[in-house]
């Protein structure tokens, strides 16, 4: 059951930094695998070959988890993880691209960059959530999504390991909803256009 009167969600974005991994590992198991849209994760992470974040996330999710490569195509009910050291961009509604241009907010991938790119392609048909973090990245991107008509969520700062990132977004009025981790999965599930 989608929310009354709002546009259909065709993409859900999650941005996170310090303290966000635990939130994801807690909520992903409760996200239904038959979501009618893809979920794209932009997480600040250390560059390095040994990172097995995709495997860790896959072990905590009923959905497939794919670390994005050049020109990866998007499928509903699948989680896409931005690779370390690249910005993730949207070419069109089902095609991603990567870019290794300058860092933004000391970050590559930058949440702002991906959120803006998604909003330019999906307009109002996108949902985005900003989790715990110590970085200024993400707040502007979330505001951009809201301005384009998208649906925005910030983690309740009082539940965040590092409150700074979601608090910045809330301060600038970028969040439609403020949620604790325990309510995130059902929030996402409810955006899916289900038949039951």
């Amino acid at each position, binding site marked *: 059951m989608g929310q009354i009167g709002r546009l259909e969600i065709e993409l859900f974005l999650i941005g996170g930094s310090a303290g966000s991994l635990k939130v994801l590992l807690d909520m992903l198991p409760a996200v239904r695998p038959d979501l009618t849209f893809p979920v794209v994760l932009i997480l600040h992470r250390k560059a390095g*070959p040994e990172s097995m974040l995709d495997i860790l996330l896959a072990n905590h999710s009923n959905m497939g988890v794919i670390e994005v490569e*050049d020109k990866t195509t998007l499928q509903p009910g699948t989680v896409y993880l931005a690779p370390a050291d*690249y910005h993730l961009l949207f*070419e069109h509604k089902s095609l991603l*691209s990567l*870019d290794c241009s300058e860092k933004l907010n000391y970050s590559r991938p930058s949440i702002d960059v991906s959120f803006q*790119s998604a909003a330019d*392609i999906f307009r109002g048909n996108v949902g985005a959530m900003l989790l715990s973090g110590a970085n200024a990245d993400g707040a502007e991107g979330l505001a951009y999504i809201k301005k384009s008509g998208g649906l925005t969520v910030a983690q309740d700062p009082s539940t965040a390991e590092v409150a700074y990132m979601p608090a910045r977004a809330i301060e600038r009025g970028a969040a439609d909803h403020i949620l604790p981790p325990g309510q995130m999965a059902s929030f996402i599930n409810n955006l899916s256009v289900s038949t039951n």
Partner: protein
Amino acid sequence: MLEPTIIKDDELEVLLADISVLYGYDFTQYSKASLKRRVNRICLLDKFASFAELRYRLTHYPEYLQRFIEEITVNVTEMFRDPTFYKALREKVFPQLGTYPFIRIWLAGCSTGEEAYSIAILLKEANLYHKSLIYATDLNPGVLETAQKGIYAINQMRQYSENYILSGGREDFSSYYRANYEMVKFNADLREKMIFSTHNLVSDSSFNAFQLVVCRNVLIYFEKELQNKVLRLFDDSLDPLGFLALGAKETLRFSNLEKQYKQLDSEKIWRKLH
């Protein structure tokens, strides 16, 4: 700060068509998401308030073209970027290349040269540099000038030195350059076997036969069709049993070449079968 959107999608198309017709540089098959960001960024940097202003400058001032192209392409690079790639070059590719009397390497999209110096260092350490030639090419003449000089900011060296060690380097990394205030200059003997030249992967053809072609983080900026065209160009430029190396997130899979090449383990290195 995110760039504001000054240039709309259809305006970008017009601009790219102008540049192609007037100057012969064809960006129409570049990935649009990155291009859009770069064009909006240059509007901000060079203070164009509208599409019309940017278009006027580009079409009426040919001397502006070089700056424009340099800014809309992404030239970010580092030394020993992805150390495991360089480790694989050392351990899996160079022993093969060493069997040739003469080694020709093409670095396509070499940007400001950090990759070229990294490979020169590896070749030296493998005792192969004396019989090698590195052809380092890029679309932008400006980055090639920097590459030729081999002068880089000293504050990068710590990171590069760490990368170097992770790539299997055992020497003292600082022995490869001389520091002077904020800058370092890499030793002249590393440049001895480098040839720098402009080459446009979109429009220029093959110019030699190589045993190793390295093109990393360039194809991500191209759409699929152009990628296939450029991969054909590399194929035409590779000797039988030659090696092709791509960036960490790029692949030969799904391309027309896939069947004629064999991937080395999980590395982004492929060997031409015959």
